[in-house]
């Protein structure tokens, strides 16, 4: 009941929005129920996530007390219970920290005005063509009194926000290219200049929404009912799918193919888990015995880094942003992918010289009090979260696997841990998993249900969501590290 009211309220609020945005895809079908006088929106499809069957996801109403509080919190803070929350609630401990942070970033004391915050969220999500987040924040943006004109494109926003566009672009796709000149350019632009505190707030928001976009695509979050593509006015008999839904190539046909393929290989995948556990055990034991030479360790990192650039899904079709989301950013061609084709060199960033715990935290907390603490907690929870299970096995120490995932992502961004043997990554992460990670982190808009289904086939959905949490937090930390290092360099 609570959800229903939420949806209704949000829906009335958003009608104007969808009119304003004028979704071309759905617009055509709208007239059909006109004769009845009232057009009743129908939810499209399959629950909060397109990748995860609805029955696997916790039903609202059957939650325990802790989850209920979380839902209530989320609803109170945002006025809605969005699909992201419904998927993340697989991991309530993380969700709590996530919501707290997001609430603080968007609604509590901070140097940026409220509509700026949502607009920055829109900018960041639009970089990955994440229409889900863009739609949500367009609503919020208008709700806090933002100027609808800005939504026509970045060039209609104030110069100050336009200046942020470049940082947004680099941060989203090639954070290692951020220099102190970028920072200086933002801070010294006469009347359009940012203050340091504002900039840190903006950077945190940008990274938060870049990685949240990764999560949205990585878990196949369905559009909200009140947003474009989330509802239909057509009677259910016509079709279950709106055209908007196909943007990411997740057509129902796709799903069926994968399902049939999945059935065949159940026995294969069973061995996958066993093999992975075996490898972990081996690594644990042999670590003491054979010690790779330093040169070898260094080259392993380089190899992994180089390889990570070529790991790409075979069905790498060009998806041009079909939606009007592209209005919010320019230079659509700028992406992570570009550099792998041109073979650019990613300089190595050594965590031992600039890490979140020692340096990043202090800087953020100094310029934007309390947020450092919140993000720090979130990182910790994400990194340390474990139920000691792997698929059907219990009491497994997964720390090695989690560390491999985390470090693999950082490796893709050129961040190196001196004390890590990058050979482990190759042992633990198979190719389909790497493809998934790489796609979610670098080009989330290209994630398909097939990718989601084809890695770790025996693992539970909650574990796959867990992987996604690791991915987004590692990505956020990587981006933050680069941005904060540039700010530190600017300050010294």
């Amino acid at each position, binding site marked *: 009941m609570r959800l229903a009211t939420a949806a209704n309220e949000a829906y009335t609020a958003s009608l104007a929005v969808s009119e304003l945005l004028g979704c071309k895809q759905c617009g055509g079908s709208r007239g059909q129920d006109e004769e009845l006088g009232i057009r009743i929106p129908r939810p499209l499809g399959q629950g909060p996530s397109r990748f995860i069957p609805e029955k696997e996801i916790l039903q609202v109403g059957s939650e325990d007390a802790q989850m209920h509080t979380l839902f209530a919190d989320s609803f*109170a803070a945002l006025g809605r219970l969005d699909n992201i929350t419904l998927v993340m609630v697989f991991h309530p401990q993380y969700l709590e920290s996530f919501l707290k942070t997001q609430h603080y970033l968007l609604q509590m*004391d901070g140097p940026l005005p409220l509509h700026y915050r949502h607009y920055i969220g829109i900018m960041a999500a639009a970089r990955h063509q994440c229409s889900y987040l863009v739609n949500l924040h367009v609503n919020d943006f208008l709700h*806090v009194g933002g100027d609808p004109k800005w939504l026509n494109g970045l060039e209609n926003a104030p110069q100050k926000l336009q200046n942020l566009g470049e940082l947004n672009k680099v941060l989203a796709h090639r954070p290692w290219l951020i220099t102190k000149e970028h920072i200086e350019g933002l801070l010294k632009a006469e009347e359009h200049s940012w203050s340091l505190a504002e900039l840190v707030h903006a950077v945190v928001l940008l990274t938060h929404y870049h990685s949240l976009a990764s999560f949205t695509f990585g878990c196949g979050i369905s559009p909200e009912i009140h947003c474009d593509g989330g509802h239909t006015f057509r009677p259910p008999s016509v079709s279950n799918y709106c055209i908007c839904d196909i943007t990411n190539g997740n057509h129902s046909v796709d799903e069926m193919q994968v399902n049939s393929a999945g059935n065949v290989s159940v026995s294969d995948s069973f061995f996958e888990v066993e093999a992975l556990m075996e490898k972990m055990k081996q690594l644990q034991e042999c670590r003491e015995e054979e010690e790779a030479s330093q040169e070898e*360790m260094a080259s392993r990192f380089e190899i992994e880094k180089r390889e990570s650039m070529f790991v790409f899904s075979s069905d790498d079709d060009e998806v041009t942003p079909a939606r009007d989301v592209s209005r919010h950013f320019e230079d659509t061609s700028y992406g992570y992918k570009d550099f792998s084709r041109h073979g650019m060199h990613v300089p190595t960033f050594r965590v031992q010289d600039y890490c979140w715990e*020692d340096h990043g935290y*202090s800087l953020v907390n100094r310029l934007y009090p309390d947020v450092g603490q919140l993000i720090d907690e979130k990182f910790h929870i994400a990194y340390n979260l474990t139920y000691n299970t792997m698929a059907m096995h219990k009491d497994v120490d997964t720390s090695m696997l989690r560390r491999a995932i985390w470090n693999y992502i950082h490796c893709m961004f050129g961040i190196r*841990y001196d004390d890590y043997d990058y050979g482990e990554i190759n042992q633990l992460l198979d190719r389909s998993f790497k493809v998934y990670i790489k796609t979610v982190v670098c080009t989330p808009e290209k994630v398909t249900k097939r990718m989601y289904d084809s890695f770790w086939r025996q693992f539970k959905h909650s574990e796959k969501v867990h992987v996604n949490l690791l991915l987004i937090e590692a990505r956020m930390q990587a981006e933050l590290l680069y941005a904060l290092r540039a700010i530190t360099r600017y300050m010294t």
Partner: protein
Amino acid sequence: MEKMSRVTTALSGSVLTGRTMHCHLDAPANAISVCRDAAQVVVAGRSIFKIYAIEEEQFVEKLNLRVGRKPSLNLSCADVVWHQMDENLLATAATNGVVVTWNLGRPSRNKQDQLFTEHKRTVNKVCFHPTEAHVLLSGSQDGFMKCFDLRRKDSVSTFSGQSESVRDVQFSIRDYFTFASTFENGNVQLWDIRRPDRCERMFTAHNGPVFCCDWHPEDRGWLATGGRDKMVKVWDMATHRAKEVHCVQTIASVARVKWRPECRHHLATCSMMVDHNVYVWDVRRPFVPAAMFEEHRDVTTGIAWRHPHDPSFLLSGSKDSTLCQHLFRDASQPVERANPEGLCYGLFGDLAFAAKESLVATESGRKPYAGDRRHPIFFKRKLDPAEPFAGLASSALNVFEIEPGSGSMSWFVDTAERYALAGRPLAELCDHNAKVARELGRNQVAQTWIMLRIIYCSPGLVPTTNLNHSVGKGSSCGLPLMNSFNLKDMAPGLGSETRLDRSKGDTRSDTVLLDSSATLITNEDNEETEGSDVPTDYLLGDVEGEDDELYLLDPEHAHSEEPEYVLPQEAFPLRHEIVDTPPGPEHLQDKADSPHVSGSEADAASLVPVDSSFSLISVSHALCDSRLPPDFFSALVCDMLRFYAEQGDVQMAVSVLIVLGERVRKDIDEQTQEHWYTSYIDLLQRFCLWNVSNQVVKLSTSRAISCLNQASTTLHVNCSHCKRPMSSRGWVCDRCRRCASMCAVCHHVVKGLFVWCQGCSHGGHLQHIMKWLEGSSHCPAGCGHLCEYS
């Protein structure tokens, strides 16, 4: 520049000499350590590992330990330590988790001795036993501490902190078996080296990682810890429970802490981020560092006292690739620069003044404030016995109180409440404010408002009485209003009262204006104005000119000043506008105005009293000829504003600034405006005039000011059932899971404004209750109470 400073050390009897100096390293340093003989220092970093000899005038590179074709990660040092017993023995902690020992006595070029690869993660710290030659301790990111016997190939014992990462390990200097370790989660543990199974004691020292610790060289129980929470804490471990004895608050996270030799209460710190200086603190004086070394251009990563018994030499290595020797004598001492005097005004003009006692004592013979009617009410001496600094130990506090009655600030409150600042045409605002000022007996202020009106509004709008009023009184003393020229003005800032009793004969109109605009001006014919040392003669000329020009308003000028409407104010705006809205479009030519003006000229002329001493008629004749730009007066007005602000009447300055808005804003620099605004808002808030203060904030055009009421807009509410604060939401209680406030009319939760009857305590939505009570006088809840809504 600095010559030798010779210090005899207690231990060896040798002489340490040197000066403040630095040398450039090839790469950023991560840590430094000093040899036992105090003549050599080792610097270690990611790509540097060298030994320097400390000579009198300079550092000399003695040895590069980073040898080999392709330097491995084993040489990427996070920490380095030199054995305090054996000068040939060093240990480094590598970022890849390897602990390496070095023997300088080896004949080959490669001095590497032993390699321990037991840690899985970066080793953050290594530490030699202070007295035992072969015992080495390491603490690593993987959460383990390992104790090595250098005569053996692997570790003797492993200590598990049961926590994430170890940031520092330190052997106790006094207790042979004890060592302390600090952790990323904020804990400090004490271990007995013989008992690897569990720690002796554990306590939470900091919020967030504890980066460093150091045992006191003399006091056996004292341990200093520094953390990311920007604090240095000194713990007394001798007692049953670890007790915090001192706490120093720094401005950045504390990366290293080192007790200063021979100075029981001193310790040196450097920070991890942002702040590049090295500080030496006296822990008993936690707010001001005793000394400060500012040589480094990037964060300092390692500090070491050169000799364990010499307090004057400090060495430091930094990310800016320099190695420095600091001489305590050359340190900058913030204490010296600190202002030991404090001065504060009370709300009603009371003045408190605190200073070093010595300073006050020498002057105590003098009268604290010469020649005024105020006097010190009490004179209090305060001596803090705990304060160790003899020279600064005692301070005196003087409080001067205003004579009762004379310092009443009621005029301020009245003015603040009654002034109109926006929402009406400029002329009306000026008139209103002038009226307010006059009723409060502040004629000079009233006069100013009228002048402003005349300057900025078309002359036709000037009502008769005011015009007469401003014209002067020499001839028109028959008018009743002229009584007000027997001025009884108050100096707003000082609160003293000056009565100006003037003979009417000698007043010209300009002096009238002058008197009223500047009460404390030294004036030859005013004998009672006393003690004023404000140099204000510049006004004489100005005002004279202004008076003449008052009537030179040309029609064009008049046109340009349309009545200005500032944004209407809603009763309860959901959220006030965050974007600064520029005042509505200005200076629109209004056709209807032209005949108006011509008529007003006639009015003005006819109203002028016939008096030979004023050439007003001729002046108004000249009206049409002169073409003055609209901002002709702005310089004068700005001077006037500054004058008021200077006088302490910041209220006037801000009010005029708001009322005139764009007209003068650009002529006064942002900072001054901000300063006025903040002072006025501060005053208003101290008088609890919250509404006025908020209005001022809202009307201010300065960004820094208008953002004042955008911060801390959270309102905390308690649950009406369980009285607990409702932390997450304003209308549902977490504990009793009930909606806190239901509307008695619509039976829904009230999420916004809740109005309730104080008699029966029923209530609901403001709108609903208002509507209900229009039709019925009984309580909507049906309790039978006759509610009143007013």
